[in-house]
């Protein structure tokens, strides 16, 4: 597990999930910037260049997949780890997520505790 404080960008149009994820990651010692759609996520990511992004797949406007694709094409964000969070549990969706460059994929219903573990694991992999 990484012990350093990281800046994590969370994007989800569901306020309850956004609050929950924000609280849980703050509790783990990270700084969280939360936004409610894909467009805001991309703009905020370009502004702050977070250490990791947690993106809901189904969001109004740009989806989490769109944001991932655009982030991977952006030199400043290309290496920022991305975890996709979605209700779509089909294997094909998971494959699509990985194919466009997501680092991990968490399907709803999800365990908030597991989310933190996955975030720490992805961060640890990147800082190794």
């Amino acid at each position, binding site marked *: 597990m990484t012990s350093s404080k990281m800046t994590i960008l969370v994007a989800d149009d*569901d*306020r*309850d*999930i956004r*609050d*929950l*994820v924000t*609280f*849980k990651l703050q*509790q783990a010692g990270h700084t969280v910037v939360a936004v409610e759609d894909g467009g805001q996520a991309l703009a905020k990511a370009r502004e702050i260049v977070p250490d990791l992004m947690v993106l809901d797949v189904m969001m109004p406007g740009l989806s989490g997949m769109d944001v991932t694709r655009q982030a991977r*094409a952006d030199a400043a964000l290309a290496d920022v780890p991305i975890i996709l969070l979605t*209700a779509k549990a089909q294997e094909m969706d998971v*494959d699509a997520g990985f*194919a466009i460059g997501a680092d991990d994929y968490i399907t*709803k*219903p*999800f*365990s*908030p*505790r*597991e989310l933190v573990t996955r975030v720490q694991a992805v961060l640890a992999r990147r800082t190794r």
Partner: protein
Amino acid sequence: MTRHAILNLALLVLSAQLVALTAAAAVGRGLNRGRVRRREALAQRLRGALVVLTAGEPDEVDDAVDTLAAASPREWRAIEPSVRGLLVKVRGDAHLALVRVLERRGLIEQAMANLTGSWFATRRARAAELLGATGSVSSTEQLISALRDREPQVRVVAARALGHIGDRRAVEPLLDSLALGVPPRVVTTAIAGIDRVSQVALEPSLTHQDPHYRAIAAEVAGLAAATGVVPLLVDMLKDEELEVRIRAARALGRCGRPEARPGLVAVTTPDNPVPLRVVATRALSMLADGAAVPWLAELLSDPVTDVARLAASGLLSCGPEGVVIVVAAAEDPGLRGDVARHALARAELSGQLLPQLVAAKQLGAPSASVPDPRGATEALPVLPAGNLAAQR
């Protein structure tokens, strides 16, 4: 009164009505906004407790349960949509904590009573939905009874709820609910949500006299990867109903057992209906079985484009032997070449190609036809104008 005066009066009345309507709409919107604001303010007071309930440390959760359990009816009405929403989006401790709040407020008991006792279909459906979302097996029997509810909508919600709960006792009643009009898609999804659907539960439906049952059971067997019924599924490839044969082929692909290969190969021949050939070719590809390579290589030249494309992607998933064939075919000028190039480009885009190419080179494939693994994109034979790598 002159005609002109009557017209003026009518216009005046109409204008007055229009103004009144506009004013009423504005007042309505204002009242509604006020209601939403008040509700949000009420919910806001409990939002902190809800977050702690679902994401807090174990020692914080008890207080949050108490706070939410003691909320006034008005406060609860404001926060309830969030509680119900989270109930289906979180699992583990967070889910258990939400269920504890519902229990403390007596809502689960009330839902059980409403499911069987309410006159209103919407209440029964809402009760079924809540019980499903709690995931508690203690409501399985009531939900199974609700599969026979007089209202079709309640039956559908009960079927979905049983899928969420995942109690194996529900498999047969769910299959029986097909006869009561519950849509096949709902039944399939619900049964697929049940962990380790037993072979014993599926077998009677796989051999049922009603083709609807056989088709659904085959679909479920595939979704549940019920490898124990693979021999039955292979037999079903000869079923008199095309729909059953198609679903059996799809299920065999999902089960991924190599013993399905001969049966699947037999239904990909040109004398079979095209939809069956397409699904069976995809299933063969999903087996990723090296022994299927010669037949998939044949299908690569099939005049049905979908069959040829699936054969190409199947060959790529069969390891270096399959990759060598696709790479060589990519130099053909005809449909076979187009299909092979398309498959290679897709595989390259998804990052699957590089290790395969390395292995294919080691197999001694002609170096002219095998792209250089270090620069696969540049060496790929004749990609279409919109080179996929260039689009990155």
